[in-house]
């Protein structure tokens, strides 16, 4: 189809188009919602509603839920401290994702390594309790997160009885062939009062060297955490 040249347009047409486009951009900028804060974390929709919204694609919806949860602390141009989040809400979001996709490990990784890594002991403890409870639903697949919780209870919370309780739970429930020996021997290490940060570094290194972490993003994340732990170890030696 041939087109007429621009000069054949009415004189007002182009300015009107530009003006309306500018008005649209201005309106959009003026009505941008404020970035969410930790306190804004709402309760997730009910499972039935999520199932309906997902049109039975539960796995995809579970992934979107965890990404949405992550976005509450990483809004554009603003980083919200994790500790400012309402952790009952966090647990509800993680649970909603886990209920939709019981095979995914993502919510447990977030609970153990991200939301459990805050400096507020009560919030970290809440996340580790969450991990310990959900571990029992599928021990042979979810053992890495309880192992991490046990180490963090020991090194971060300095709560040796809690760490031992988690390690014992791990030894008793995670009995599958895929669970490595070192995970089942953690209780011994904790009982022997070995170095705290060094143990955490050892667990991470064993996870990485064992080839169980194949996801590139997770590997990068763990290597970064390993470097941090080693730096802490070096600093304490000096």
């Amino acid at each position: 189809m041939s087109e007429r040249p621009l000069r054949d347009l009415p004189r007002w047409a182009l300015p009107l188009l530009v003006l309306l486009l500018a008005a649209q951009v201005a309106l959009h900028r003026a009505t941008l919602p404020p970035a969410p804060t930790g306190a804004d974390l709402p309760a997730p929709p009910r499972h039935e509603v999520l199932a309906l919204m997902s049109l039975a694609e539960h796995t995809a919806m579970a992934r979107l839920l965890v990404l949405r949860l992550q976005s509450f602390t990483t809004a554009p141009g603003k980083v919200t401290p994790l500790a400012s989040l309402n952790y009952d809400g966090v647990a509800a979001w993680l649970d909603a994702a886990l209920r939709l996709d019981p095979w995914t490990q993502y919510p447990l990784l977030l609970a153990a390594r991200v939301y459990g890594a805050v400096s507020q002991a009560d919030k970290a403890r809440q996340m580790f309790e969450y991990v310990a409870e959900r571990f029992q639903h599928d021990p042979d697949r979810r053992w890495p997160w309880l192992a991490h919780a046990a180490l963090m209870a020991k090194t971060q919370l300095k709560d040796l009885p809690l760490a031992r309780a988690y390690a014992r739970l791990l030894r008793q429930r995670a009995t599958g062939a895929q669970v490595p020996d070192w995970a089942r021997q953690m209780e011994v290490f904790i009982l022997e009062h070995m170095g705290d940060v060094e143990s955490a570094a050892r667990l991470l290194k064993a996870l990485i060297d064992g080839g169980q972490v194949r996801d590139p993003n997770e590997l990068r994340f763990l290597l970064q955490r390993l470097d941090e732990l080693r730096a802490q170890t070096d600093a304490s030696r000096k």
Partner: protein
Amino acid sequence: MNAVFLIARETLFEAYRDRIFWLFAVVLLIGVGLSLFLSEATITETVETQIALSSAYLRLATVLVMGVFVSVSIAREANDGLLQMLLALPLPRAAWYLGRLGGFVGVGTLVAIAAAGTMLPWAPASAAARWALALACELWVVVAFALLVSVSLARPTAALALTIGFYLLARAMGALLLISDNARAYDPAAGESIVNGVLHGLSHLLPRLDQYARAEWLIYPDVAQGQPLSIIAVGSLLYLALLAAAGLFDLYRRNL
């Protein structure tokens, strides 16, 4: 039989001429690109997230494009007077209808195979094959329904709206029943409500599309069970035959 085959082949050529396959290529690229972008925000399970999001997107996108293709194709044929001309020929009406249906089913099958092909770099081939066959079954049901309403209503907008509504209802029926049954569980005194009864009745008339082509088949092929493929295939063929019979019933009653 020859006429059915010729009409089906012409439908495939029509899809080629309308650049439907190019459109699907763009749809596939957008899906893969979008899932790659979103999976970059993940801390773990990057590939799994990518598969889950792109497969969910592809199911919806392919169904939508196939629905539009069928509605527009039938409307164009009617507007051009081609349908009236064909029906006036010494050719059984069933030949035209089944030929068109066969052509649309063929396009849907090719689209499902292409969609599953994009999963192959990340998912096991056997899982991708299972997903492809289930998606093909889903598209067969959708094109058969779209053909039925497009021919019956002769209004492309209404036909497309009905097709989308039918698809969404069939996909959401499992969750709707869950909500309805849960509401009764919370309030047993309410007894059997009309809505609950209607929903259960309606569910018997719809295919269980919520059980088709699920992302977990691709991500957890060893543990995710779901509906056996044989049940899905038999159920789809049965529903396809039902929709074709309904379409032929309406077509044979129509005066030119």
